[in-house]
């Protein structure tokens, strides 16, 4: 008997890597031809396509939107001051490679030989505007065109149409500003940053002149109220460098602002849109990831036998890993190549489709979206596809003798850990936001938790009931019960998919509805301020005579809060935690708009200034609750006979720590007024309407003199009536916000289109997941149904049982998905989109019904082959 050699002995030559690669490629090619890999590759391509397509689209759209928003500033960054800022600020920016421009805005009287008019003068340098363009016309109401040069040359002015009627002049006539005479050479139709700045910039129709002409007018003296603006444009790096230089050099004295600082409405629309697009592409990727996981799992299950046979032929575990790693790598390369190309086509298609709603020229795309697509594919592959395939190396070679061995490795926790970690990294990477990640993870976890309980209970009771019902029902329920683990997994995947779709659908609907509600059609676009009591009737008559849609006149006065319940009133910012800038920013974002009507320069954030502590507020009294205000605590006064009550805006009340019933003492001029807090209100700050922190009940403040504020909708040629109105009531101040409203509406329309499209893409990704999930059980169904058919079960019986099985699973998934979607939407709306949440009752019906119909349709569609293939062919194929 020969002595045995020990295990350390080398047995033959190890298999060369090249051989393994060749084997891998051959397997890959054969599996591809056999259709085994198609769904896996399709899922990966889908992931890359949706990510790179959406990334390309959003990359270009976002840059276009930023550009569009930059147009609203006429620059990328703006610096505003009340005093002429040091020239060094401009020269340093130029030395850093930034383009610069400047202007001064001030209100002044303009004269013609016939008449005079208060105009808001804007004196611009040659380079103005740095972003966007000036639109002019050669005659009043003539066809507008883009001015080839910047602003007017020296000695010339361009004026808005209203100035022509106000001064009774024509193009070519002369006007006087201060001590200078100018020739009117063009009609100014549109300036990109028309609505930026404060009252001074917008107090009357625009007169545009050259900056160098200002000194000769002698209008601006020491102490004159003028607004100075420096404009900067350039690439992001230079802008960032310059911003930090200004911060370091001037220690916060001067501040560069972008469109997000300047316009709360645009900023909000943009950031909500971005959040949605991000969320959409995230959902698409996660869904594609699930599809990849499911198809990879199915592929690996079909390859247990391969691995076992390869092991009997001498392949080691590591060599098997190398083979399947090679296969995945080739798939990855293919998916990235094909997906990127399709992504490009996709985004081109979207752009063509949306050409009418995206009128702006999009800047060319950067390479980043492709990198994002490729990285996503890589993460998806490692997280979702690699674990089940690498599990193949643990297949026991004994499986060649006993087929029941070898399924165990996949039940280990590793693939799930990989999947969860991968999914989390994707969410975090995409959202760059721990909050959204947290919400999504909580949503998924709660669905999983609810699912495990619900599916157990429902599957149990459903199947128990089913066992007593007809034979198709019995077959279906016994199938559900037999595959309980798979059924639970299917319900989980289906409900997550439907939940993603529902969440996105609901968010989309609410987001767009909210935007439309923010600035509905016929939103008043002019503020009338400084109206005296004795002008009210006359103005109302004027509006009626000219069919103008006017709104209530709000009396306005400045009030300072002195005491709360006898104690000195805290300042509204006292309750802020130190270093909590978000609340201050949020407040200052909301304030400039009420400021349009209520606070103006007194309370709101001043130009170029940091938010400062405030005591005085513009207040009003009225019997009618203003639109977009909602009482959330206490009650609005029912009639006009209850003086000495006050309604406080909710956030503001919380900052002051006010309670219902508190006694407040206000000082108004020389008088003091004591009132009780009887209600708290929420206010929609972004609706471009007059809004107030404090509204007093009628009969409280009438003895104090007030000026009035109202809003007015003026469209098209109606605008010319302003001159007439101002001539009759020269003391009133008109604030024109029509251009701003129009710009915001354009941006909102664009973002809405993008939002719609992303929802469609996620739908496609969702369908892919559903298909993969149904396919995952296909082999087993084939085998079972072939056996049933050989035992004499008819085609109709099998089809009915399949229909019932999928409908049942779909209904379960629909119920759970609806629950998960409502919870997710609640958190997303409240925490991310800053919207109010309302339950969507219709979804509670639509979710389960849609789940039932979609899953039943998809399931039966995909498994129809089960009854259309001959049982013998099935059994031979599966045993082979």
């Amino acid at each position, binding site marked *: 008997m020969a002595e045995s*050699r020990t295990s350390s002995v080398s047995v033959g030559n190890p298999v060369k890597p090249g051989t393994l690669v060749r084997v891998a490629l*051959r397997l890959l090619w054969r599996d591809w031809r056999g259709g085994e890999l198609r769904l896996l590759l399709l899922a990966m391509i889908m992931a890359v396509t949706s990510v790179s397509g959406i990334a390309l689209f959003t990359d270009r759209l976002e840059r276009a939107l930023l550009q569009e928003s930059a147009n609203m500033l006429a620059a990328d960054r703006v610096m505003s001051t009340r005093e002429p800022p040091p020239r060094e600020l401009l020269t340093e920016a130029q030395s850093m490679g930034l383009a610069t421009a400047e202007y001064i805005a001030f209100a002044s009287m303009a004269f013609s030989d016939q008449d005079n008019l208060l105009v808001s003068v804007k004196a611009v340098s040659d380079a103005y505007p740095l972003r966007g363009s000036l639109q002019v016309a050669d005659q009043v109401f003539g066809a507008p065109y883009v001015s080839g040069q910047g602003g007017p040359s020296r000695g010339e002015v361009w004026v808005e149409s209203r100035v022509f009627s106000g001064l009774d002049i024509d193009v070519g006539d002369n006007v006087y500003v201060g001590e200078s005479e100018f020739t009117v050479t063009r009609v100014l139709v549109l300036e990109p940053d028309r609505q930026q700045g404060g009252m001074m910039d917008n107090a009357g129709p625009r007169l545009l002149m050259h900056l160098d002409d200002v000194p000769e007018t002698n209008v601006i003296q020491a102490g004159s109220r003028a607004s100075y603006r420096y404009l900067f444009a350039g690439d992001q790096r230079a802008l960032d460098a310059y911003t930090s230089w200004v911060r370091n050099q001037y220690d916060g004295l001067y501040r560069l602002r972008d469109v997000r600082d300047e316009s709360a409405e645009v900023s909000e629309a943009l950031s909500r849109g971005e959040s949605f697009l991000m969320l959409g592409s995230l959902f698409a990727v996660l869904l594609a990831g699930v599809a990849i996981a499911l198809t990879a799992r199915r592929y690996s299950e079909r390859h247990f036998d391969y691995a076992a046979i390869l*092991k009997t032929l001498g392949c080691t575990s590591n060599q098997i890993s190398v083979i399947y790693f090679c296969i995945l790598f080739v798939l990855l390369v293919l998916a990235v190549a094909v997906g990127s190309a399709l992504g490009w086509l996709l985004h081109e298609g979207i752009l063509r489709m949306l050409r009418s709603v995206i009128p702006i020229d999009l800047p060319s795309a950067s390479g980043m979206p492709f990198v994002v697509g490729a990285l996503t594919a890589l993460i998806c592959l490692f997280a979702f596809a690699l674990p089940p395939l690498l599990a193949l190396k643990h297949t026991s070679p004994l499986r060649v003798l006993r087929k029941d061995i070898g399924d165990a490795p996949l039940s280990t926790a590793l693939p799930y850990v990989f999947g969860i970690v991968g999914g989390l990294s994707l969410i975090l990477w995409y959202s760059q936001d721990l909050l959204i990640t947290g919400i999504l993870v909580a949503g998924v976890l709660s669905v999983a938790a609810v699912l495990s309980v619900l599916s157990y209970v429902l599957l149990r009771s459903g199947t128990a009931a089913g066992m007593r019902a007809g034979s198709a029902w019995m077959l279906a329920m016994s199938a559900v019960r037999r595959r309980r683990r798979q059924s639970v997994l299917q319900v989980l995947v289906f409900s997550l998919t439907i939940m993603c779709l529902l969440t996105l659908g609901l968010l989309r609907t609410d987001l767009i509805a909210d935007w439309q509600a923010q600035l509905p059609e016929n939103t008043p676009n002019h503020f009338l301020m400084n109206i005296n009591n004795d002008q009210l009737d006359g103005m109302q008559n004027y509006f009626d005579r000219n069919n103008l849609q006017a709104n209530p006149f709000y009396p306005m006065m400045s009030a300072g809060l002195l005491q709360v319940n006898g104690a000195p009133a805290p300042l509204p910012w006292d309750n802020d935690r130190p270093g909590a800038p978000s609340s201050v920013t949020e407040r200052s974002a909301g304030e400039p708009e009420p400021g349009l009507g209520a606070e103006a320069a007194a309370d709101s954030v001043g130009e170029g200034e940091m938010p400062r502590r405030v005591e005085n507020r513009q207040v009003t009294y009225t019997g009618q609750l203003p639109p977009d205000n909602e009482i959330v605590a206490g009650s609005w006064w029912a009639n006009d006979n209850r003086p000495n009550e006050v309604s406080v805006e909710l956030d503001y009340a919380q900052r002051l720590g006010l309670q219902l019933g508190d006694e407040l003492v206000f000082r108004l001029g020389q008088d003091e007024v004591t009132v009780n807090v009887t209600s708290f209100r929420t206010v929609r700050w972004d609706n471009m309407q007059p809004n107030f922190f404090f509204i007093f009940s009628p009969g409280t403040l009438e003895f104090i003199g007030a000026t009035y504020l109202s809003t007015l909708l003026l469209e098209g040629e109606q605008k010319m009536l302003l001159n007439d109105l101002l001539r009759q009531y020269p003391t009133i101040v008109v604030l024109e916000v029509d251009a701003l409203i129009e710009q915001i509406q354009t941006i909102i329309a664009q973002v809405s289109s993008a939002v719609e499209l992303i929802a469609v893409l996620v739908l496609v990704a969702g369908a892919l997941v559903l298909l993969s999930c149904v396919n995952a059980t296909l082999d087993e169904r084939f085998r079972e149904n072939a056996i049933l058919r050989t035992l004499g079960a008819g085609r109709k019986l099998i089809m009915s049982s399949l229909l019932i099985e999928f409908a049942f699973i779909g209904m379960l998934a629909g119920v759970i998905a609806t629950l998960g979607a409502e919870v997710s939407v609640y958190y997303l709306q409240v925490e991310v989109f800053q919207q109010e949440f309302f339950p969507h009752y219709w979804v509670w019906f639509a979710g389960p019904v849609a789940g039932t119909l979609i899953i039943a349709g998809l399931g039966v569609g995909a498994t129809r082959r089960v009854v259309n293939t001959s049982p013998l062919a099935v059994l031979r194929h599966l045993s082979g």
Partner: protein
Amino acid sequence: MASMVEARHLSKRVSTSEGELVILNDINLSIAAAETVAIVGASGSGKSTLLGLMAGLDGASGGDMLLDGHNLSTMDEEQRAQLRGQSVGFVFQSFQLLPSLTALENVMLPIELKNDRNARQKAAQLLQRVGLESRVTHYPNQLSGGEQQRVAIARAFASEAKILFADEPTGNLDTTTGAKVIDLLFSLNKEYGTTLVLVTHDDRLAQRCRRIIRLVAGEITEDSAIAEDSITGEAVHG
């Protein structure tokens, strides 16, 4: 003559919900090179388990298992895989061809894994030898059961294994086809001088081997040599 396979006090036990189940108990045997051995027994007697242990597809619970001089009990799965690749060929009841590879590619696989550059040529010759030269580009599901088993036999000899394990090689075939396949197996075995260990419950097929080992309830109850002249000739006709 040197032992190709040697089992020393080999045992296999598995835990079940009803306690420990002994599948093989104190198996001792030695199989010489070029010997043809049939392991017979009823279903559940432990013959397939013994084959799995002898071929290094599974680990024993006790005792030593030596294959081609290597003690499998002290080797890990990676080393056993390499040993299988070098020394062992298999023929299975359910053929175990890779369904996505053609007949030729299935036979090429073990040759390629030995880094042999002439894989295609050698595989084609073997397929010709088993009478399937016209079927080289067919996939397993395009072949009949008998043809698939012939491909499996060609693959088993392709690796120039020293020992061939066959697990119920005719179990999935009708009698006539089974007989032809067995003829081919024994003829090739003779040609290549391979050791053949064949598991079957068919006594007549067992009669074609030089030695029969009978298992009953996991223990060897009979180990008998068969005289040369009494070995059943050509066929195992039903």
